[in-house]
């Protein structure tokens, strides 16, 4: 029973650690499925984290923080769209520009506004997303095995966590069961065919890029206003890049994204707990080895040694109508 509770604890923290990854991963999924590669996920989340923390601090409302986070992320998504879709600029370069620009701007403004080396003052009370206890968590918690799982792992998270997990079935439905989803997938594989059918390629791609911005906004807000209680410069710490790795792992599919992000969250959670622990038969595993594992696994997968990850055919290529 004790080890079961320990396992639940690890699952609980993996769930929390997986949330920003899941948001960014699904965000990247919309964008790349529509043919726009986005390595600026990191920057959008960081921008959203900053905007949400400052707004929540000023207004005392976590909800308004979420709105502001999403808004800033959407604006960054429009910059990405303008450069990549309208101007047909290099998508990688644009992503890097957004990452670097946001990293600088948030640290600079945080420093000027709050004078604490770039971090924002702590958020308290309703300025943070508090944990939601799902109905009957206490009552059902008494049921053996499943009860504690419900009470520990499923219940007791902040609102953005549930938004992120709801986004998985929603994304699946939008992509595979709606006309818009079909067109999004088509425009990422063969934009010329979509164009021939009389549908605007730029408009579709813009809509995908905005969906990407929306999700990054939720992910960034979660990091600053729920997971932590303030904004810290560079607080996304590469999450946007692990999300890209998870996206490859998921082979650009929503349900796969869920599992990949949970797996990477689990690795993160175990890395924290395994610090200085000696495993029987293996000895002490360096924490760095576990931290590097998501990246290593992604490279192996990309290399096609295990399974094969094939990106959408037209991703990364600007669409030129007149040929």
């Amino acid at each position, binding site marked *: 029973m004790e080890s079961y509770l320990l396992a639940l604890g690890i699952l609980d923290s993996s769930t929390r650690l997986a949330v920003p990854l899941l948001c960014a991963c699904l965000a990247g999924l919309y964008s790349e499925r529509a043919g726009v*590669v986005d*390595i600026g996920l990191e920057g959008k989340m960081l921008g959203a984290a900053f905007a949400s923390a400052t707004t929540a601090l000023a207004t005392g409302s976590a909800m308004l923080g979420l709105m502001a986070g999403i808004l800033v992320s959407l604006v960054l998504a429009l*910059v990405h769209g303008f*450069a*990549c879709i*309208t*101007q*047909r*600029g*290099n998508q*990688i*370069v*644009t992503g*890097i*520009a*957004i*990452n*670097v*620009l*946001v*990293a*600088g*701007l948030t*640290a*600079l*403004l945080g*420093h*000027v506004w709050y004078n604490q080396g*770039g971090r924002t003052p702590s958020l308290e009370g309703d300025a943070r997303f508090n944990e939601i206890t799902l109905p009957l968590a206490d009552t059902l918690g008494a049921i053996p095995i499943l009860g504690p799982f419900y009470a520990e792992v499923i219940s007791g998270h902040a609102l953005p966590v549930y938004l992120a997990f709801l986004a998985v079935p929603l994304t699946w439905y939008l992509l595979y069961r709606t006309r818009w989803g079909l067109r999004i997938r088509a425009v990422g594989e063969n934009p010329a065919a979509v164009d021939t059918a009389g549908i605007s390629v*730029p408009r579709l791609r813009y809509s995908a890029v905005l969906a990407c911005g929306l999700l990054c906004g939720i992910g960034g807000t979660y990091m600053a206003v729920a997971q932590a209680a303030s904004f810290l*410069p560079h607080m996304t710490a*590469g999450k946007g*890049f692990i999300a*890209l*790795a998870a996206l*490859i792992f998921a082979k650009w599919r929503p349900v796969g994204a869920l599992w990949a992000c949970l797996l990477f969250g689990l690795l993160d959670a175990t890395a924290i707990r395994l610090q200085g622990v000696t495993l029987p038969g293996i000895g002490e595993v*360096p924490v*760095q*080895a576990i*931290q*590097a594992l998501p*990246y*290593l696994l*992604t*490279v192996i997968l*990309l*290399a*096609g040694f295990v399974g094969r990850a094939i*990106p959408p055919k037209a991703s990364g290529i600007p669409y030129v*109508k*007149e040929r």
Partner: protein
Amino acid sequence: MSTAPVSLPRWADVVLLPALNVGLAFLASGLVVLAIGESPFEATALLLRGALGHAEGLGFTLYYTTNFIFTGLAVAVAFHAGLFNIGGEGQAMLGGIGAAIAALALGALPGIIALPMAILAAALFGAAWAAIPGWLQAKRGSHVVITTIMFNFIASALLVYLLVDVFRPTGMMEPSSRVFAAGGKLPFLHDIAASLGIKLPKSPLNLSFVLALVSALAVWVLIYRSRLGYAIRTVGANPTAARYAGISPERITILAMAISGALAGMMAVNEILGVQHRLLLAFTAGYGFVGIAVALMGRGHPLGIIFAALLFGVLYQGGTELAFDKPNISRDMIVVIQGLVILFAGALEFMLKPSLARLLARKGGA
């Protein structure tokens, strides 16, 4: 929106358009400074004075420039082959590991023997770390952008592990290696000048600056005057045509990545062998990413890269001094400028092209 291909006269394409783009980036930076309640003109004056106004500042400026020449060249060589190497950061870390191993092992020998070996080790380690993504791209089709990002994180984990568990002398708290013996230290330029009887103020500027300039010349010869460089540019322009011309794009991809990684790895020569004289955490400090802005601004040409690197050297050194005088304008401002340069000179490179072409055509027609 409908952009029929427009063409510009060569001078406008090579000089005017990039200058306008960089101008836009600085204009936007000025607006940011204005927005935080400072004067952009005063800030620029302070920045320039801090970077170029005195000998010590100039030494620091050229020391930063050295890093940016290496990382800028690294990005540019890959660019010419049509590859985007954003793993400069990781390759520099590996370069540092290589340089440190050599300097720790051979430091007791005279510098004339130990230093070339250490520089070679830095280049080889960096090259190997970039050649793997190159090989994966060429043979397995894994996109080099993603793999180099992943390799950055793997390199950083590796560096932390080595520093904490292997290189750190027992009893030391800070994760860093021991200081190299005399043979593993590149001479400072103020020391060289002093031995010639010239007195220069102390600065981290060292012999690797000369190495950086030589590397720029070597890259120019490689790209524009050698058979391999021609093959690299051909593969970058059109891999299919290259194959018909008997060039193997796979081989060129791996080679170009290796050369690119070697250059990024040599950044560690400046930081590790030249200044710190020991291996430590986070010595790459984002310089690998600055290389992207430098290469874009310099348009992939070694001469352009030297000037762009100098500009970023001025920004880094001047920005540090500016942060002293104007605490509101922290060093993060430099990162903002860097982002804006990448945005306007890279991502929005052709935004002004159609209107510029119209403007020039009207002038020409009248």
